[in-house]
Each structure stands twice: as structure tokens, then as C-alpha cells.
């Protein structure tokens, strides 16, 4: 596809996309939600729960700093994750 053909193909594709979505007329930005419903799969998160850690000037009395010699295996929900049909793939390291 040469440059000219590509340009026309892209422009035509864009016009066509506008024509076939839920709205044809221009909409303000806040109305874009109409398009979102038919594009991609919206995943819902728990609002701000993963906002990232905040700083604090507090200390802690939970002593857990010493576990340098550590032989843990993953023991969370990874056992529910199927890789190629096999449940989990856990073995001690």
C-alpha cells in the first residue's frame, strides 16, 4: 500500500467507524461513554483501593525483617489460575 492509498484507506476507515457507532453527530467529550460501551471490555476495579502506598511517620512493632533464609512457595489465589488447563503449577523451590 503506497502512502496515498494508505492515507485514503485510513481516512475512509475512520469516517466509516464514526458512521457505524452509536452516534453519528459530533458529541461533547463527556458523552464519549456511548462509544466506550461498544469498545473493549471494561474491567471494574475497587475505586481507590490500589491508589498506592502513602507515606507515614509511624513505626511498626510487627517484627518480620529477618526472613532472609526463605523457602516460601506461592500460596495465594494462584492455585485458581489455570495455565494450559493445569490447575496451579506449584512446587517447592
Amino acid at each position: 500500500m503506497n502512502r496515498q492509498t494508505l492515507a485514503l484507506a485510513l481516512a475512509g476507515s475512520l469516517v466509516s467507524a464514526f458512521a457505524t457507532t452509536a452516534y453519528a453527530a459530533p458529541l461533547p467529550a463527556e458523552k464519549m461513554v456511548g462509544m466506550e460501551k461498544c469498545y473493549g471490555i471494561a474491567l471494574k476495579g475497587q475505586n481507590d483501593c490500589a491508589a498506592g502506598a502513602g507515606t507515614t511517620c509511624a513505626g511498626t512493632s510487627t517484627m518480620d525483617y529477618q526472613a532472609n533464609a526463605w523457602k516460601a512457595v506461592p500460596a495465594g489465589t494462584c492455585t485458581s489460575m489455570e495455565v494450559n488447563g493445569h490447575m496451579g503449577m506449584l512446587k517447592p523451590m
Partner: protein
Amino acid sequence: MDQSAFAAALLDPSLPLPAGVTCARGEPDATRFSVYRNNVVASLSRALGERFPVVRRLVGDEFFNGMARAFLTVSLPRSPLIFAYGDTFPDFVAGFAPAAALPYLADTARLEANWTRAYHAADATPLPVERLLAIAPERLAGIRLLLHPAVALARSDFAIGTIWQAHQAEVVGSVIVAASESVLVTRPTFDVRVHVVPPADGVFADSVLRGETLGEAAATAFARHPDFDFGHALLGLASLGAFADSPLQGDPA
């Protein structure tokens, strides 16, 4: 006191207490010094756990804390902005041998890192979608759209979006992870949004986010996915808030 020696002893419990440390009894007390060791390790592990809650749930607290300890001893925060700590954690997870049995773990971490970056990114008005129609057809291929400060894409050979979604609920059901997913994170206003986009659009979005022109990105997507629908993909990405409002810059070359 030498703060370098103090810092080294904080991070390596096998080192002796720094010289000059004492207590009211007039003798060094390892338990007292361990409070500082503990504060450093526990606070940074907790910070990582708060930024990567899905990774933490996937592997469990004990494994996660061990992985966090291993990470923080080689990668302390570079600044006091703790919400930004862990930008390099996904790469560390990818190379962390004890987690090798969970090949989706690092990419899930990338998605979570993107989420927090989007949450704290600069505010910007998304590009109104109809502005795309105002671009002269002959200029479209050479355009580089201004990316929204919050937009990020994580592409994986695994179903990281589905995994992430499953872990937003209290009870996590079974997930088939062996399915490639491209997950777009945007923040058009204040709420972070997470979308699994179609595979061809993921290739296109990846190219656009790397700074390619629309023409270059479309060509890349066509080459991988002959059924790629440029118009639908561009309109879709714009509607999710991937681009920021700006005077559109052409690339006539």
C-alpha cells in the same frame, strides 16, 4: 556516627550493629536496633503490597513479603514519593526465580503499576473524538496524537486483565490464564479505567504509545492482523481517553 554504616546494617541483619549505638544501660541492644531494621523493611514491603494488591493475593502474604524483601534490598526507593515506589518491581518479578511457575505474575504487576501511575498522573482533558474527523485525510497517516498523561498499555501472553478483574472481588474463582490480553489503562477525569482491548488494537495502541505516527502504527497492526479496523480502533482509543486535547500536529514528511 557514620550514616553509611548505619544504613548498611539496617538492610543486612547479618551485619553487626553500627559502632557507637548504645542504650540507657550503656550497652548496644540488638532488639532496639532491629526496630529500625523492621520499620524500613516492613514499611517498604507494605508499600509494595498496597501498590500490587493483586500480585500479593496471587502469591499470598508470606511469599509476597519475601519477594518484597528481596526486591527492596536491591532497589530502595529513589525518592520519598512512596506511591511511586515499585516502578521496577514488575521487571524484578519477571526475573525472580521462585515465581517462575507463575508466568503471568510480572505482567499482572505491570498492569498494577500502570494503574497507580494513572491515578497520580497529571490532569488533562481527553481529546474529543469528533476532533479526529477534522484531520485532513491526507495528513492522518503522518499524525502523532498527544498521549494523555495517564494512558498506559500492558500487553501479555496471559489474561492479565481477567486475572486483575477476578481479584477485585473478595472470592476469586478459577481463571484460564492462557489467553493473550492487551489492557489499556486511562483516566479521562479522576477515576482510573481498565479495558481489555481487541488484540489487533493492542498492537496498534502499543505502537501509538511508543510514539509512532498513526500510519506507522496502522501498518504494524495490519501486518500482524489483516482484519485490523483502523477507524474503529482509533475512535475506540480516543473514546476511552487515550489522547489529550491539543492542537493536532501533522507530520508532513
